Each structure stands twice: as C-alpha cells, then as structure tokens.
C-alpha cells in the first residue's frame, strides 16, 4: 500500500509542479503587461481573469476534454488520459488565479517602486524588472496558491487523466475512488498526506521568500 501511496504522491507533485511552472511562465508576463500601463483593454483583461478564477474545475475539464478527445481539434496530439493532459488542464485552471493575484501584487508596487525607478532614470523596462524583483516574495506566494489549487483539484484530473492506475492516478482522484468504494481508511490516509504536502510546500516557499 505504501509503495502505491508514495507513487501517487510523487506523481501528483510532478503533475501539479509542472502545471504551476507552465502557468507561471505565461501568467506573470501577462500580469506585467496588465500593470505596465493603464488602459481599457488591460483593465478588461484583468476583469476576465478575475471572473475566471471561480470557474468550476469540471467546466475546464469538459472544455479541454472536447479539445483533446480523438475527434476534437487537438485530438491529433493524442494526449488525452495522460499526465501531460492533466498538467495542461491544471495550468489552464490556475492561470486566472495567478494572473489576478500577481497583477494585484504588481499594482501595489507600481505607485511606489515603479515611480521611484522611473524618476531616478530607469527605462520603463528596467522599472518593470525592478518592480517584479521587489515583488518576488509576494509573487512566490501567489504561485504557491496556484500550486495548492492545482494539487487539490479533482475535476480536471479525473476528466483529462481518467484515473488510470500507475499512470494518471493522483491523490485527489484516488481519494474520490476510495470513498466511492467505501475504503475510508485509505482515503483518509491520502487526505492527510495531501494536507501535509500542501503545508510542507507552503512552509518551504515561505522560508525561501523570507531569505530571498
């Protein structure tokens, strides 16, 4: 049992970690663009991100399922029911959350750091880089929230991964499966581990952001 638990935990960490890296790679630049200058378009972009934060995971799972299914427009990739599909799904899921929170963090520093940087002679790009560097600890926290949302979600993992034993089974899908089978002991063990993992990751990120 413990070997299976370890395997599932490692797979969950890998998939959600990949999803977080993917989402961060595009979400932070988008948040930078939104906060770089005030405009109606950028405000609308942020409104859309804010609205999408609360979209249920099953809706994202359903949309991506239709895209990745064999008859779907991206079916030729053949990634449905693979860990890659789950990682992409989770990345899409947490993108609005990271954009929304990062934009909020960057807006906070804009009036102070950005103005100071520009007024002391930085180019707008240098000022933006300074803003991001100065916001790093807070941005790390937003990324952490994204990771925690990814590792704790069920809908995307179930619909895009299919809960295939030894391949796409992650902590949340195992918990759901074991509960449906009436195996509460195993489900509770995994739920405890899921909580421990999120606490541990939070503690590590906090430590890193303090020393950064």
């Amino acid at each position: 049992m413990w070997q299976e638990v370890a395997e599932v935990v490692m797979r969950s960490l890998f998939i959600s970690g990949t999803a977080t890296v993917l989402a961060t790679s595009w979400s932070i630049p988008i948040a930078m663009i939104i906060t770089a200058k005030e405009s109606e378009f950028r405000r609308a972009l942020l409104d859309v991100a804010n609205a999408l934060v609360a979209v249920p995971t099953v809706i994202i799972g359903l949309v991506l399922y239709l895209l990745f299914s064999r008859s779907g427009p991206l079916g030729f990739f053949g990634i449905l029911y693979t860990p890659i599909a789950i990682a992409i799904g989770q990345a899409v899921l947490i993108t609005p959350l990271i954009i929304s929170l990062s934009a909020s963090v960057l807006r906070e520093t804009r009036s102070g750091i950005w103005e100071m940087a520009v007024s002391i002679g930085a180019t707008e790009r240098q000022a933006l880089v300074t803003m991001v560097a100065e916001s790093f600890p807070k941005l790390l926290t937003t990324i952490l929230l994204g990771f925690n949302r990814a590792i704790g979600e069920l809908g995307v993992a179930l619909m895009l991964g299919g809960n295939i034993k030894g391949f796409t089974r992650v902590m949340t899908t195992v918990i759901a499966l074991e509960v449906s089978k009436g195996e509460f002991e195993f489900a509770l063990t995994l739920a405890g581990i899921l909580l421990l993992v999120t606490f541990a990751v939070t503690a590590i990120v906090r430590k890193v952001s303090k020393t950064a």
Partner: protein
Amino acid sequence: MIELKNVSFAYVSEDVLRNVNLAFGPGVTAIIGPNGSGKTTLLKLAAAIYRPRVGEILIDGVNPWSASETVKLLARRNVVYVHEKPIMLRGSVADNVAYGLRVRNVPAEEVAARTEEVLELLGIKHLAHEKAQTLSAGQQQKVALARALAVRPKNLLLDEPTANLDKNGWETFIELIKELAREGVCIAIATHDRLLAMRLADRIALVENKIVTFVESPEHTG
C-alpha cells in the same frame, strides 16, 4: 529648468490641477498649500511621471510626452523626484543609493566612488551595508536623498523632504540644498514646513483650489 505651460491634470474625470503655468528655475522653489491641494501631483507632473491632460511640460526645453522614447528618457534623466514616503528597495543602503547609477550603466568603480561620496555627504556612510528597509523613517529619507544626489540631477524635486528629520538632520539638509542651489541645480520642494520655505526658497508657489495662485519671493508671503 522645468516649465509647465497651461497644464491641467485629472486622475479620473475631475481636474486636480487646472491651467498651471509655472517654471522651476535655478535656485529653490518652495511649493506650499493645504493637504490634498495637489502639491505632490504638481511635482509628479514636473518629473514626467504623470502625463498632463492638457498643456505641456518642458524639461530643459524638451517635452517628454511628445518626444521619442530615447529623448523622453534623456529628458527624464535630468529630473529626479524624491517621494514623501521614502521608497526603499530590498538590499543594502549602498545598493539603494547605487540604483540610479546602475540603470544608467555607469561603470562599477564609478558607482562605488559616487555612492561612497553621497553617503559621506549625508552622514550615513556607517549605514552602507545595513538593510535599507529596516532603517528608521528619517534614515530612509536620507538614503532616498542620497540616491537622488548620486545621479547628479539638474532638476531635483523633493516631496516633504524634512518630514522625518530631526533637528540636526534638518540643519544639514538646509545647508546641502543651499550648496546644490549655488551649484545651479533647479530645486522644487513641496512642504508644509513654513520655516524651511522661508530659509531656503527663492520663490514660493501656493497651490490651492486646483490652481497655482501666485509665485512670489518668500519675504512677500508674510
């Protein structure tokens, strides 16, 4: 020299400043006025941080808002605005002071020399390796001023620069500004400190009810 010609500015829809005509020439211009009257806004317009709704800002004859990005940057680099609440970057005092030089790609040896020079000038050399964000408000104000002086600006805009200084710091500041004014730097100071205005200002501008009502020499203000 910074000139504001027929400048109006609004944050949202209603003007905060209306039809301002003003020039910050060599020497010291004190900007006084009640809270919320637009003193800070005026300085940020002069520093080309804010773009006027109408009118034009000329920094040494150049309108940064109608110039190319390169010319705009060069014009901006002739002005330094120092916030009322000092903005400290993470890192040491020396890192903060060197920031303006580093973004200008000044060679490392010169950065070190000029940083040391201004830290000494402001009497905070002993704080060089302290974390800037952990300093007191008064010390941070000196660091912010040191950061501004390190880049040797032609135009220096100071927002409530003595708000957190003790008596010694205040006197040192007065002497420093007088020296800079003698060197030909155009200095504008937004302040509530009437004594500071009386001691330093060659001109006083009063900002009230969205307009700059007059610019006088201090002896005329009573």
